[in-house]
């Protein structure tokens, strides 16, 4: 029982990352009709926004400490971050400590800007082209973006920890009456889950309750009619692309304390998030979120020792297996609309 609760928790957490990425993908597909293979790269760039901010905050000047020596026997150079000088050592250290949450503020404008530039500069020219062309050009873009990041940040992962207040874990099991150490859960993962829930809620509320959102939703189901009404749907769609990029970026920012980011993390998530979108149903926002959590939980269950013992290697293929079964039994995914992307 406790093992199952534990894996559900893990699955929710993994699922929230999948759901956030898939949500952005679906927004782009639903509004613009574009299959964006560069979406994983946006997630990765979001993560590197956090890295960049942490590096900026750590920008230092060098003093030489004659009492110590470095590995070559020369006097040791000591680096002091400027923020420590400006805000005093304690406040400075706190700012550096909180660099990941701070990066949310930093990443939103950057990601929206990147999204808008991408849409206006590249995607716009591909609305009338076949889906295969869209996939291919965004795939090319993904390669270019990740190579640029690799050029500046290297291939190794870069540790970017969560604030001290959120490190460590708490005993969830004891809370609900199990023995100690049966169900432990890291604080930051709870933060991530809550954050994902807020972002998903915000996106849905935005689409549901604002006029902007209403127009966009109308445009998603019938673009021509909305255009006939004299509404400039294109401009709104550009903004939607920016928002989708920001959602992916935020998912990336908050992900860095969970796993140190590297340049290929986008590609690692890309295939998975496409599977999520297709399982949920192309163009269905609730489908994307639901499928994200579903696959996250299934993946967690498949990794349980008891399951692997019965079906060796199941943890390697579970996601794909689920995708195949669902696509064969429910051709349009769990919540998909008819006739989307089948030409």
């Amino acid at each position: 029982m406790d093992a199952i609760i534990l894996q559900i928790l893990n699955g929710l957490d993994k699922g929230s990352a999948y759901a956030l990425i898939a949500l952005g993908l679906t927004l782009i597909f639903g509004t613009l009709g574009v299959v964006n293979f560069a979406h994983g790269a946006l997630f990765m760039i979001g993560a590197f926004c956090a890295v960049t901010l942490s590096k900026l905050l750590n920008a230092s000047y060098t003093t030489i400490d004659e009492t110590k020596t470095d590995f070559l026997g020369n006097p040791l150079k000591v680096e002091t971050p400027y923020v420590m000088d400006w805000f005093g050592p304690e406040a400075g250290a706190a700012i550096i400590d909180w660099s990941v949450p701070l990066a949310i503020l930093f990443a939103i404008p950057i990601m929206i800007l990147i999204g808008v530039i991408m849409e206006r500069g590249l995607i716009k020219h591909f609305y009338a082209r076949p889906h295969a062309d869209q996939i291919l050009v965004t795939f090319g873009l993904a390669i270019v973006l990740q190579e640029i990041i690799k050029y500046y940040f290297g291939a190794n992962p870069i540790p970017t920890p969560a604030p001290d207040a959120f490190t460590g874990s708490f005993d969830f099991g004891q809370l609900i009456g199990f023995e100690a150490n049966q169900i432990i859960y890291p604080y930051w993962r709870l933060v991530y889950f809550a954050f994902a829930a807020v972002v998903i809620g915000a996106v849905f509320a935005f689409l549901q309750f604002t006029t902007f959102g209403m127009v966009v939703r109308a445009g998603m189901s019938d673009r021509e009619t909305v255009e006939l009404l004299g509404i400039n749907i294109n401009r709104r769609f550009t903004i939607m692309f920016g928002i989708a990029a920001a959602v992916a970026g935020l998912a990336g920012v908050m992900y860095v304390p969970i796993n140190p980011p590297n340049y290929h993390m986008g590609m690692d998530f890309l295939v998975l998030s496409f599977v999520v979108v297709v399982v949920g149903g192309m163009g269905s926002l609730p489908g994307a979120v639901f499928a994200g959590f579903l696959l996250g939980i299934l993946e967690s269950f498949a990794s349980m020792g008891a399951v692997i013992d019965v079906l060796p290697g199941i943890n390697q293929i579970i996601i794909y297996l689920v995708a195949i079964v669902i696509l064969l039994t429910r051709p349009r995914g769990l919540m998909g609309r008819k006739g989307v992307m089948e030409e």
Partner: protein
Amino acid sequence: MLGLGKKDTLLLGIVAVLTILAPFIFNPFPVNSAMAQFNAGYPDLLQRFVIFGIFAIGYNLLFGLTGYLSFGHAAFLGVGSYAAVWMFKLLSMNVIPAIALSVLTAGLFAVLIGYISLRRSGIYFAILTLAFAQMTYALAYSVLTPITGGETGLQLALSDPRILDGAASAEGNLPVPGLFGLEMRDSVQLAVGDWLFTFSAGYYFSGLVMLLAFYLAIRIFRSPFGMMLRAIKSNQQRVNYTGLNARPYTLAAFVISGMYAGLAGGLMAAMDPLAGAERMYWTASGEVVLMTILGGVGTLIGPVLGAGLIKYMENIVSKINSDILHGWFAFMPDGLEDFIVSIIYPFIGKGWHLTLGIIFMLVVIFLPGGLVEGGQRIARLLRRRKSDKDEDAGQAKTEAAE
């Protein structure tokens, strides 16, 4: 000739001549010159050109003709390789049974995957093929290690039975794949002045297979079957309402294209008897899509050109390091040299992925027909210029006559 039209015969002829002369064409620079870096006429790379050419030709039979975008074709290549290596291990080092088995195995595998995946179309088909290929890769890398060799790949060992070739031995060197005594790694070198050309048995064998595969692809393109496939790509609804059952047509195309991939995989193993799981990873499937698109999807020669370009970048451009760059620009003043090198460096050597991504994007944006379309545009431009010139010449003649 050979049941081909005039244009196709000409195309096949040109490809055949290029294949035969490739060791010269790709080695235009003397051995010790600075440009020797760009020579690509050595056996391994030439073999890769034709083998990936076969892979891409086959992929194009599916994607180019029917429009079904498979994102898992590398799985068939991998399965073909494994089959061939197992044949080397168990039966004989002769490449014929090995390649035959790889084509067959890949074909059977394609029937299975195609039968299921082709129940869906569009991106759903792409995801299904991707899912199958990723499953194959993941299992081959881990739990199937006893069959596939896992991380280190499936290799020959001295203790393999090799029933037809005689007893196993613990001493000596591993046998080499061959064709009735002709070893695939045999080669003849020709030195002309400063130039050195290598003619390898393996390359000419693969080249011959590629020509056959190319010839067969032309026949398929020009056949009623090929026409049906193009009709399916163009309008599947009309196909159904014209009394044609699209499913067996697409399945046949899928299986043929899977067998081409298996053939390529078998040849790879014949040239280099090792089969690794990572040649089935989804990026490897992505690579053949890149090749086909770069060269020109739906054209006969395009996929071969695309395969050549990507393999050239992977093997030649990636080897240019900063030392070599500094060597090239050494004649410049120091500051300028460093500046130029620092501008070029991110795009070559270890940055070759970046260049590939940029080229690929440019092709998709500006040349949807790939390099073939580029070539056609240039040819059209030249022709226009030439006809202008002819007119000029005509005028000049008239003037002279007067």
